[in-house]
Every structure is written in C-alpha cells, then in structure tokens.
C-alpha cells in the first residue's frame, strides 16, 4: 500500500490510540517495526549520553586549570562526529557495495535529505537496517562514531593544542573510523572471514585506543610528570565528577550494547544487557582486588577504570558468550587495566585518564576473548582482526598526528601548559569563583 506523505505523519497518532483498529489495518510486521525502531532510538539516546559521561570523567581526572579546554573538546567532538558521519562517514562505513575487495567502498557523499528518503517505514531501505528506519540507522551509528574520537581526547589532555586536536579528530573520525568499520559492520573482508565484534571492542574502542597511543607517544608527557626517574602523579581535581562520568558511561552502555542487537528482540537484548552489567561488575571487583593488593589502599579511580574495562571487554562478545564467561572476561579486564595503567606510567607514556588502558588494552582483550569463550568464533580470526585494525588504525593515527606535528604543531608551549589551557587557549576560567590549589 503506497503511503502518501500526509498519512505517514498521521500514522504515529493512530499507533498511539489504543482503541479500535484504525481504518488502515496495522499488520503485525508494521507493529514490530515500530517497536524495533523505538528501541533503537532509545539506544541512540543512551549512546549520546555517553558523551556526557566522557566529559565528566575527563574533567574529573584532570586539573581544574584545563577544564574549559576539556569541555570545549568534548562538545566539539560530538558535532564533528555527527556532521562528518553525515557528510562522508555513514556511506563509507556502510557502502552497500565494495569497490576494492571488501576493503573500501563508498556510497557517495551526504545522506538522504528529507522525509521522502524513507517513504514506507514498513520496509527496509537497505540490507543494513531491516528492523528500523534509515534515519534511525544513521543516527545510532553516528553516535558511535563520535565516541571513537572522545577516547583520544582524554589521553592527550592538558597539553595538546586545541586546533591540532580538532583537525586530528575530524580526519580520524571522518575517514579512518568509518573505513575500518566497513571491514566488519559494513560487510567487508573481516566480516566475510567470520570476525566478530558485537558492539565495537575493536571497531570503536581499540580504534580510539590506537589513536590515543599514537597521540600520547608523539605529544610526550605532561610537564613534571616524569622527573629524575620518578613518577610524579598529577591528580585529577574532582573524583565526584569522575565517578559521575563512569556511571553515565555505564548507563549509556545499555544503549551501546543493547542497541547493537539492532532490534528489540526481547531475548537477545535482555541477555546482552545482563552480560554487559555482569562484566562491568566483575571489572570493578577485578580492579578492586588488584589495586587493594598492589597499592595497599584501594584506589577509587582504578575501580572506575575497572568498570569501564569490564564494559569494553564484553563489548565484542556480549551476545556470544555465557554469563559466566562475561564475568570472567570482565574480571580479567579489571585486573589488566590496573596493570596496564601502571605499565604505561613506567614507560613514560602519560595518559591522564587511563584511556589507552581501558579502551586499547581491554578492547584487544575483549575481542580475543570472543575467540576464547565462544564456540562460534575462532581465536585465530579474532587475532587477525585485532592485528589488522591495529596496523591500520595505529599507522594512520601516527601519520595524521605526525603531519600535524610538523605543520601546525601538536603541543602547547611550556608556559601555556603551566598557566593552564583554559587561560592560554580559551582566555577564560572554569572556576572563577573558587580558590583552587595552584601549587604543584
């Protein structure tokens, strides 16, 4: 039945009226489509909330003299993510057809422009989104894209030039993220090999993590962090904000993993949310036991990282492993993340928020864990995927950062770093009313 534009707008009102069936009989398929689409939009909203989580986490774990800069970067990233995804990312990640053997395909610049892009909501507009509308598909995936760049912003915080970061984020999220994403979720060569990354341990978290690693390496540590062979911690200025950030990220993960089911299938969505939460909890316990033993006192920021480590770890296989396995994966991630944070400090790779440890180290672990704990997927294939993404993401991030470094420069001057990026880059303060501790 051909739906005209006007009747399409009236349909939602008809759905809402619980009373007798409307004149146009509602098929079961159309009802299911609406249910699926609604859940996917809720999931989109939840993933969006993760940006607030990242913002709080980063602000909390860095110095107050750089807070404006962090907030500015996080606000810009969501904009850059959504817009580049609309202009080029979406069609690069989901090309439909590949022009270079499963490696590269591009369905053209821009997305559909108006409602006429989806005339019949009961039908799929492509094989990518069979249960929901083209618009839902775009927006849900766009929210994922932006999170990949946010991961980088925490690791390079407190010393990267604002403009340099924004240029990097635009290129990396605009081009690299969707290109490598197409290899799996777009139906490319890794998908054909049987590589499995349910919600993005590799595609989102390790892709962000590799870029964070490249950035940290090329930037160098913050001033005063590593002096005379000793590590001088630079504490974050607000653990309450960091905690709020962690909880908001977990909150958003309900959509990150729950929505990656790509339908409202009650069994699968509820199962995935259980494995997700179990892994997060196990991550906290794993990190707690590790930090309590190794550091004599349990470090709160480590258990925050532990929760996120568990979440990243389960993200590759939340749909494919048992609940018991999810607990193990999460616990191991919680242990790994603590040691990873300590290791990076000891090799003088300064990561203020532990982004590399949470997203790269545990992203790799989570991806490989699918091969270990799921009978349906092979460890070898998972390893190939990890290496392929690592090679491409690390190399491209390193290249982009290097070009930026030799052209406009990557790092702020020493004086600007001491004054704080809020004053040097933004000429404003985050806490003008507060008496903040300024000796270090």
């Amino acid at each position, binding site marked *: 039945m051909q739906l005209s534009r006007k009747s399409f707008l009236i349909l939602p009102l008809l759905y809402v009226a619980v009373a007798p069936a409307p004149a146009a009989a509602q098929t079961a398929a159309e009802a299911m489509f609406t249910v699926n689409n609604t859940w996917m939009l809720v999931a989109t909203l939840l993933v969006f909330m993760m940006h607030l989580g990242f913002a709080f986490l980063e602000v909390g774990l860095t110095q107050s003299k750089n807070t404006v800069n962090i907030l500015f970067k996080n606000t810009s990233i969501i904009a850059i993510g959504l817009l580049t995804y609309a202009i080029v990312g979406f069609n690069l990640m989901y090309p439909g057809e590949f022009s270079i053997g499963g490696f590269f395909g591009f369905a053209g610049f821009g997305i559909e422009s108006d409602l006429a892009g989806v005339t019949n909501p009961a039908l799929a507009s492509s094989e990518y989104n069979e249960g929901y509308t083209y618009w839902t598909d775009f927006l849900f995936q766009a929210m994922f894209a932006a999170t990949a760049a946010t991961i980088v912003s925490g690791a390079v915080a407190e010393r990267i030039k604002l403009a340099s970061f924004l240029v990097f984020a635009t290129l990396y999220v605009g081009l690299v993220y969707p290109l490598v994403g197409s290899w799996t979720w777009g139906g490319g060569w890794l998908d054909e090999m049987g590589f499995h990354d349910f919600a993005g341990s590799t595609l989102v978290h390790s892709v962000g993590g590799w870029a964070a690693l490249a950035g940290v390496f090329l930037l160098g540590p913050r001033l005063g962090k590593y002096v005379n062979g000793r590590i001088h911690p630079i504490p974050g200025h607000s653990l309450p904000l960091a905690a709020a950030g962690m909880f908001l990220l977990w909150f958003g993960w309900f959509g990150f993993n729950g929505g990656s089911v790509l339908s409202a299938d009650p069994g699968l969505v509820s199962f995935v949310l259980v494995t997700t939460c179990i892994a997060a909890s196990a991550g906290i316990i794993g990190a707690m036991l590790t930090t309590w033993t190794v550091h004599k006192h349990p470090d709160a920021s480590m258990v925050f990282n532990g929760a996120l480590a568990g979440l990243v770890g389960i993200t590759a296989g939340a749909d494919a492993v048992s609940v018991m396995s999810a607990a193990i994966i999460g616990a191991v991630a919680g242990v790994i993340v603590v040691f990873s944070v300590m290791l990076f400090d000891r090799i003088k790779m300064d990561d203020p928020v532990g982004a590399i440890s949470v997203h790269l180290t545990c992203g790799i672990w989570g991806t490989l864990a699918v091969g270990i704990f799921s009978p349906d997927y092979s460890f070898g294939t998972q390893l190939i995927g990890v290496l392929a993404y690592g090679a491409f993401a690390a190399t491209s991030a390193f290249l982009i950062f290097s070009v930026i470094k030799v052209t406009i420069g990557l790092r702020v001057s020493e004086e600007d770093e001491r004054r704080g990026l809020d004053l040097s880059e933004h000429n404003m303060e985050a806490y003008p009313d507060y008496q903040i501790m300024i*000796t270090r």
Partner: protein
Amino acid sequence: MKLVIAYIQPAAFHNVKQALTDVGVGRMSVANAQGVGQQGGYTESYRGSELEIVLRKKVRLEIAVNDDFVERTREAIIKGARTGNFGDGVIFVVELAECYRIRTGESGSPAVG
C-alpha cells in the same frame, strides 16, 4: 627571630621549595593568595565581553627563621622564584617577637628550628 613573608608566582613554588630545602630551611607555611603589583592585571573573555581580572593568583610563604638564617632564606627564595619578568614577587622580613612550639612548649630560638 624574623618572619620571612614571600609572595611568589604559583609556578615558582616547586623551585623555591627545592632551593629552601637545599639550604636547610624545611619548615614553612604556604597559602593561596591573590595580589597585584607592577605586573598589573589582565583580561579574560566571557560570552562576547572582556572580563577585567585585577588580581593575579599568588602563593604566600611564611617562614619563621632565626636571624642567622634570614640571608640564606632570602637568597633561596630569590634563586627559586626570579625569572626576570614582572610578577616575580616580593619578600618581606618582619620582626618575630615570640615563638612557641605547641607540642613541647619550647619558646624562642629553639622553637623556630
């Protein structure tokens, strides 16, 4: 006995502390302060307008010393804090009439340390 009061740039504190330690001055009181001298204030921007900032952030050190320590304390602070730019700070040396250690009840020079 003298009380050496110094106002320095926050960024200089680390070096000043190190320099003081090097000459054997390890006891001090440190506080955040705001102040302005020859350096003057500066402007920030906020929502399209300029914001005059008249006071700059400073760190105040208060160090009680015996008379024979005044010179090395002063030299150490200068060594740690001098950059040659406006805003390096200022040192006041005032007479300290009495000094008591709370824990032991000592007074006078021994209490200063």
